[in-house]
C-alpha cells in the first residue's frame, strides 16, 4: 500500500533528522508546539476548556450531578473520566466502541487527576454513605495531530479549575460555588527517536516513535503518574532525564492552565 510506503519513508526521515537534533517541523528536541487553552468554551457544561497543542485540539467538559458514593468509600465523592476519540478528529478513528487508544488516554489522564488529588473527593460528599456529587470529566478529541494525552490532561485540569458546583440547580444548596481544586497535575509526553528523546510528539513522530513516556507532575514538584506506551525501551537514566524535563514543562503549562500567557 502506498500509504505504508510513505509512512516508512517518513519514519526514516524523522529518525535521520532526530539523529542531528532536528525535527520535521523545525522544533528543538525539548520544545513544545504552541500551547493554548480556552476555558468556558461550552456553557452547558459546569466547567469546560478547549486545549490546543499545535494541530491537536481536545475539548473537556465537566458535569456534576448528585449521586450515591461507592459502598466501600462512603466518605468520598465520585470522579469519572472518559475520553472520546471520535472519528471526526482523525482519518484513523472509526465509529464504534471505545478503542484501546481512547481507553489509554482516559485512564492515563484519570490517573494523574486522581493521584494528584486535583479534586478533594471528601469535599464532594453531601451526606456520608448516601449522597455525594459525582464529577464527570468528558474529553472530546476534536483534532488529532499527536500527543493526545498532554492535550487531554491540559483540557481536563483547566476545565476542573474553572468548574462550578451546580448546587442551586439540583437543590442541594442555596447557591452554586466554585469546585475546590487543590492541585493541578500536568502530563508531559516524550517519544524516543533513535538516541534522541523528544517532547510533545506530533502524530508522525508517534508513528515513528520507539517508545513513548508520559510523566505527570504537580505544582509541588511531585511526580504523580507515569505511563510508558508503544513499543520501545527507556533506561533508568533516560527516565530521570525525562522527569527533570517534565517538571520544567509542567510549570509552564500549569501557568497556561491557570490562565497565564503561553
Amino acid at each position, binding site marked *: 500500500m502506498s500509504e505504508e510506503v510513505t509512512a516508512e519513508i517518513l519514519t526514516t526521515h524523522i529518525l535521520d533528522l532526530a539523529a542531528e537534533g532536528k525535527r520535521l517541523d523545525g522544533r528543538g528536541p525539548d520544545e513544545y508546539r504552541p500551547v493554548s487553552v480556552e476555558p468556558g468554551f*461550552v456553557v*452547558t457544561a*459546569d466547567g469546560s476548556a478547549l486545549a490546543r497543542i499545535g494541530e491537536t*485540539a481536545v475539548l473537556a467538559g465537566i458535569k456534576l450531578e448528585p449521586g450515591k458514593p461507592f459502598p466501600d468509600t462512603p466518605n468520598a465523592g465520585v470522579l469519572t473520566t472518559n475520553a472520546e476519540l471520535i472519528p471526526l478528529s482523525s482519518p484513523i478513528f472509526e465509529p464504534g466502541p471505545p478503542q484501546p487508544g481512547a481507553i489509554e488516554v482516559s485512564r492515563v489522564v484519570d490517573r494523574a487527576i486522581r493521584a494528584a488529588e486535583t479534586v478533594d473527593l471528601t469535599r464532594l460528599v453531601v451526606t456520608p454513605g448516601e449522597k455525594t456529587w459525582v464529577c464527570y470529566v468528558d474529553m472530546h478529541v476534536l483534532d488529532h495531530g499527536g500527543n493526545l494525552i498532554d492535550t487531554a490532561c491540559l483540557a481536563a485540569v483547566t476545565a476542573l479549575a474553572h468548574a462550578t458546583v451546580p448546587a442551586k440547580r439540583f437543590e442541594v444548596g442555596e447557591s452554586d460555588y466554585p469546585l475546590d481544586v487543590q492541585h493541578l497535575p500536568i502530563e508531559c509526553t516524550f517519544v524516543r527517536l533513535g538516541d534522541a528523546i523528544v517532547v510533545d510528539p506530533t502524530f508522525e513522530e508517534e508513528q515513528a516513535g520507539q517508545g513513548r513516556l508520559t510523566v505527570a507532575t504537580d505544582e509541588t514538584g511531585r511526580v504523580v503518574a507515569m505511563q510508558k506506551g508503544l513499543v520501545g525501551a527507556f533506561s533508568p537514566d533516560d527516565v530521570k532525564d525525562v522527569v527533570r524535563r517534565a517538571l520544567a514543562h509542567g510549570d509552564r503549562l500549569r501557568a497556561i492552565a491557570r490562565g497565564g500567557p503561553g
Partner: protein
Amino acid sequence: MGSVGAKDVPVLLSPEGLRIDGRHLDELRPLAIRAGALHHADGSAFVEWGANKVMAAVYGPREVHPRHLQQNNKAVIQCKYNMAAFSVDERKRPGLDRRSQEISKVIAEAFESVVFVEEFPRTSIDIYIEVLQANAGTRCAGVVAASVALADAGIPMVDLLPAVAVGKVAGQIALDLKKEEDNFGEADLPMALVPQSGRLVLLQMEGHMTPEELGRSLDLGVKGCRDIYERMKAALRARYAAPAPGGAA
C-alpha cells in the same frame, strides 16, 4: 413539547410580539460559520448558531467500512451525528442512542440527494457531526456545518444544503426556535432546502399545526434557508478567497 403539567412556563411572546430573546417571529438567531476549522479532516466546518456549537468533518471519498455496505454504482454516504456528554443540561451518556441514529439517517439521506454519488463508486463519504453545545435546532446546525464541510472537502454537489427549524410558539409561527421555545412550544418543523430546485430533502415535524399553519411554516422556513444559504456561501468565500489559515475549532 413538554408543556403539559410543566411548571414555570416562560412567557414566550411579549405583548409587542417579541420572543423570549427579543427576536421577531421571522428572525434567525446569530449565525457564524467557519469553513476549514480542523486540520486532519478532508473538509470541516464549525457553526455557532445562537447557543449551539456544532463541528462537522468530512472524510472521503475513501474505502467503505464496513465493507459490505459498498455499492458498485455509487458512493455511500455515512453520517454520524453525536452529542457530547456535556452539551446539554443533564449529562448525556456517551454513545449511540435512538435519537442520534435517526437523525444520522435522515441527514445522510438528505446529502445523498445532492451529492453526485455516482461519480465515486465503491467509496464512502463519511460525515461526522459533533454537537458540542446544544440549544435546539442542532440537527439543522449539523446539516449546515456538514454541507459547508462537504464543499470544503471538494465533494461535487448539486448545491449547498441550508437548514432551519420552524415552530409554533404561543400560537404563532416562528423561525429558528431556541431551547425554551422548543421545550414549551407547540410544534417543531426542521427542514433542509436545495436552493437551486426549491425542494426540501430533509423534513420532520412534531407537534400540532393546522394545514394552513403548516403551509405558512414551510414558506417561512424556505425564506430562512435562503438567508442561511447566503451565509454558507460567504463562509466558503472567506476560506478560499484568502490563503488558508488552517486554525482549529
